[in-house]
């Protein structure tokens, strides 16, 4: 499913999107299948599946730990795509990974694999707009979304360039710092949502962990929320994982719905 179709569908329902991140292969590929199903059951609208990289400099300690578990579980790009191909879900899937894995596979092969195995979008946290020319061209050619991040520190001139390059949705970094579940949502979120002038849907991430927060975020005018660390924490605990993933997804989605747009 295309990301824009999903946002259009939700728009009609006047509903914000819940974008859930987990790391593929954490702790095994089989577990990931089960977890994805649980997240979908809980109400996730889009799933971001991390393709683990050995040096995840843009991630917080929680997700870094998940990435390590996945690598120790034997996850590789080949296994990743096979896993994606075997998922029976009817919502958009997004791959989140670091640029070196894409570069090493070959940009075109990577994008084609995304298409073949059913991935709708790509997020590369260490790929700045400045360096994205080639990948962006291929994504356009193969009709895969290339999703960019913007931050409160993003200058106006950079904002323009990023919004011009990106498709699918814009990933708004709610506050400075890197991923990791935080207790409250910064007031700067509203400001950022207002600054990001685009028709592309805006999803807010970084530090969101409960329904109260997702509700607040959607009220700032955002089109979706992205939650990662909170899910990865549950996986790390190893206790009743599918049930708790589903429950958290439900709570988050309920928060979103309560803010009814």
């Amino acid at each position, binding site marked *: 499913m295309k990301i824009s179709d999903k946002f259009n569908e939700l728009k009609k329902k006047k509903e914000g999107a819940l974008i859930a991140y987990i790391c593929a292969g954490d702790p095994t590929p089989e577990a990931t299948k089960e977890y994805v199903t649980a997240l979908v059951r809980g109400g996730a609208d889009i799933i971001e599946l991390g393709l683990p*990289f*050995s*040096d*995840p*400099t*843009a*991630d*917080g*300690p929680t997700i*870094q*730990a998940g990435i*390590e578990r996945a*690598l120790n579980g034997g996850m*590789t*790009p*080949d296994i990743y795509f096979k896993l994606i191909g075997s998922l029976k879900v009817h919502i958009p899937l997004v791959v989140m990974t*670091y*640029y*070196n*894995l*894409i*570069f*090493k*596979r070959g940009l075109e092969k990577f994008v084609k694999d995304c298409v073949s195995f059913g991935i709708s979008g790509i997020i590369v*946290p*260490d*790929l*700045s*707009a*400045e*360096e994205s*020319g080639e990948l962006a061209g291929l994504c356009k050619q193969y009709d895969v979304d290339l999703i*960019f*991040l*913007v*931050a409160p*520190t*993003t*200058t106006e001139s*950079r904002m323009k360039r*990023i919004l011009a390059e990106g498709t699918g949705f814009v990933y708004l*970094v709610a506050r*400075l*710092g*890197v991923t990791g579940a935080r207790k409250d949502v910064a007031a700067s979120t509203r400001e950022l949502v207002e600054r990001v002038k685009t028709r592309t849907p805006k999803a807010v991430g970084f530090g969101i962990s409960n329904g109260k927060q997702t509700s607040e975020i959607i009220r700032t005018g955002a089109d979706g929320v992205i939650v990662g660390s909170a899910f990865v924490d549950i996986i790390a605990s190893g206790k009743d994982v599918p049930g708790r993933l589903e429950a958290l997804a439900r709570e988050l989605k309920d928060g979103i719905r309560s803010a009814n747009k």
Partner: protein
Amino acid sequence: MKQELKQTKFGKYGGQFVPEVLMPAIEELTEQYEKYKDDPVFNEELDYYLRDFAGRPSPLYFAKHLSKEYGVKIYLKREDLVHGGAHKLNNTLGQALLTKYMGKKRIIAETGAGQHGTACAMAGAAFGISTEVYMGARDTVRQRMNVYRMELMGTKVIQVKSGSQTLKDAINEAMRDWAANVETTHYMIGSVVGPHPYPMMVRDFQSVIGKEVRTQIMEKEGRFPDSIVACTGGGSNAMGIFYPFIEDDVDLFAVEAGGSGMKVTEKEALHSATLCTGEEGILHGMHTMVLQNKYGQILESSSIAAGLDYAGVGPELAYLADTGRIKPRNSMDSEALDAFHDLCRLEGIIPALESSHALAYVKKAASSGELGEIVVINISGRGDKDLETVMGMKK
């Protein structure tokens, strides 16, 4: 955009592969560095600190006994005499001064063995700028003395307990800190690595080494050397001594750590010879040569010299190696150890194990004629930090 790309790269290498949250800081730094790098007031102040605080110029010493032993005329560039015991301070003084000019109040850095961290602590104290250094928890135990040194100089050493609790995790944590505090904080990188402008900026700050050599060798020999040999981890001491000679007819040898052999597994390399054996990739914000497996996962590198133990290398070195301007070489742990003993015994100078790799290459290549008649070797640091390691090895 074409033109900008050109600025941030060396051929296809370099660039700015960093999270968006950091890009504004990187842009600001680029801009500020461009502004001050040729500013006479900035440079005068930097020169002052390099001279009076760091003890520059460092001598160029004719190693009489070693020359005889190795069969080629050898001059040693004595960065081991720089305050702190290595070339590292040239760079941190430059960046700390820039921090001051940028009006930032705080310096952060990461460190592995503690060499760069110590140099940051020294520069931070000299300029009265609050300094915090991230260090893997396991490294803080192994390098207890360097931690203590930094703390004595008022630097806060933050133990990183995530992941493998080593340099890699310290880098991640420092990046997170920078992302959260870009407005007030300068992130100090310790070699010619990372996103633009770091490779260029660190090279420029380290170029004082090569500039001094130009004058010194002319005084002593009335001509340039035939070759210059420097060990290469990230590549800052190498670029520092090479760069001022880049247009001259001088052969430049970048000697990497051959470790215990050229073997590589899925996750590890027994060496750190990135230029010699690596492949193109993207790591730590730059497009460069990296040690990686077939999927692009970065390998754990290995070397007896902690400062060379890095899976990447400065992008400019990758570029210069491609164009043939510099010649990548390597020395094994055992060869470096051997050369270490040679210099101690023959000249009364205890070199860093990093620098011993450069010596070792001269030892084995001198007889081939490849180095010409006059060689300058960069003794990037002193070996006091390495005594425990060497003691632990059989000679």
